[in-house]
């Protein structure tokens, strides 16, 4: 080899790096998926109440993530915030869809579709399943009536996220989370009470 060959190794090196970069990117995505999928499931399920719909929603969110290599290279906290934002948006879009809403109502009527995995209480009292489903439907209905930002804040906080994580997800200052949460809890409680009224 002589100096004139210098560009050649450079070309080869570039070609060799492509599979390595791809492998690294795949490892990174695998790690993000393993880290965030379960907690995202917990969050999105609260909106949809249906395991299959939750899985479908998460597939859409992670598929978007898989196509955004720049986002994947961001710190975990930023990726998590993005996933929560996208997951919640998609989940509420699904919930709002008139067709899905109708189908869901029908399925609830048949006691299908919603999460029917029995709890201990259900095993003692099968009618508990019915009550639980009715209660869940009423709660979700109240949530939908609360302003978007507030209900997202509510779900995030009561799914266990910190104020910093909530702020990152909603794109607001950490110092604004408290007041948003306080107002959201008050609004939700009032809405939920109203639904109970005849």
């Amino acid at each position, binding site marked *: 080899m002589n100096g004139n060959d210098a560009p050649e190794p450079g070309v080869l090196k570039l070609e060799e790096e492509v599979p390595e970069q791809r492998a690294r990117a795949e490892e990174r995505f695998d790690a993000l*998926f393993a880290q965030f999928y379960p907690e995202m499931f*917990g969050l999105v399920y609260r909106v949809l*109440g249906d395991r299959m719909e939750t899985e479908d929603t998460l597939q859409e969110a992670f598929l978007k993530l898989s196509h955004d290599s720049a986002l994947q290279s961001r710190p975990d906290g930023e990726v998590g915030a993005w996933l929560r934002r996208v997951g919640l948006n998609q989940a509420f879009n699904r919930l709002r869809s008139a067709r899905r809403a109708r189908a869901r109502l029908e399925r609830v009527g048949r006691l299908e579709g919603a999460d029917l995995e029995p709890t201990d209480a259900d095993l003692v009292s099968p009618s508990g399943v019915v009550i639980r489903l009715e209660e869940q439907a009423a709660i979700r209905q109240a949530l939908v009536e609360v302003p978007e930002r507030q209900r997202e804040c509510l779900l995030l906080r009561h799914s266990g996220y910190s104020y910093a994580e909530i702020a990152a997800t909603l794109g607001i200052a950490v110092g604004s989370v408290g007041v948003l949460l*306080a107002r959201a809890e008050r609004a939700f*409680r009032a809405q939920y009470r109203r639904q109970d009224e005849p």
Partner: protein
Amino acid sequence: MNTTTRTCPELGAWRAWLDHEDHPSSMAEHLQACPGCQRLVADLRDDAASVGHTLSVLAPTRLPSPAEVAVARERLETGRRPAAAAQPPTRTLEPIPVSVARISTPWRIAASGLAAALVLSLIIAFTPEGGAAAASFLAQFRSQQVTAVEVTPQSQAEIYRTLNALGNLGTIKTPGSDGKEARPEAAARGAAEQARTVSLAEAGQEIGFSLKTPDPATLPAGFDATPRVRVMPAYQIRFTFDRNKARGYFQSTGHPEVSLPDKFDGATLVVSIPAAALLEYQNGSSKGALIVGQAGELVVDVEGGKVGLPEMRDFLLSMPGLPPLVVSQLKQIQNWNEVLPIPVPVDQVHWQSTTINGNQGLLLNDNSNVGSAAIWHAGGHLYGLAGSLKASDLKRVAETLR
């Protein structure tokens, strides 16, 4: 701050204080001295407790298990593959020879294994959508025929889990894995990404036999008579059994009754996936495409160990987690060492046995009649056609391959 706050903290500050997110001692001191804030904090606490209790009803009874997360990850991979094929990175790849944008998702899933390359019927052996084939491909094998194995969404999920467990029984190596644990489907994807556009003659040299082309007169109206030709490289996947690793895995997963016999230890299954050629006939007006795929035989050999191939097949088919219905179908294949099982998701795809120029094969079409595919073996080579046309029209084109 080290003095009692004179001005009452705002609503948000108190809410954060309740959650221990913001708790300067001055706030506690202020609270003790301020009846107004005491009432506010009591209300906030009551709201928070009530809402927390109410919303707790929405929580799932359980979060996905690691196995379910793995299944979801595999499912995502299935969804990513056709999309990745449709829009490959421009730096290394050219556009995929399938217009998948117009094709329904279920069909894309089926087509990705059946049409986009019959290569891919080989890859099927290791991909999630081809999961049903995986158990039997792990047996001595030289593909000569094809057969359908019906899989349901549930059995697909079970197969994913079992496939994911394979790495726990030994070591999988694929091109580019450099000694690290490899994912077979990543190898398949890597091969697809290395596809190159070549001439017909070059493609023939690459795959080891002369390519056949359909009679252009039989192509539906609007289709270009000159195909674009692409080849994908051959590659190998090597799976080496490790008795101790397998034993530990089965014990940890509650299956101590399953053991890997000593003679499996160190045995390596070598799956040789041949180079494949894809001929793409474009329809300029509809943006559809007809794909003709051709490849040699998929061969599975065993190196090392002292295990017989039938025993190995029996062991793999007995692995916990494989759906009994799929296992039963695979066991019913008499000449299992030359029949390539093609998994057919019965909720998405209709299939029927057919003959193409006297060779046994399969004809598939998706339930929405968006497209169809045919796959068959002839003269030691594997052929496949797929496109956005009726199954009967597609078969007619297939029979003109010369």
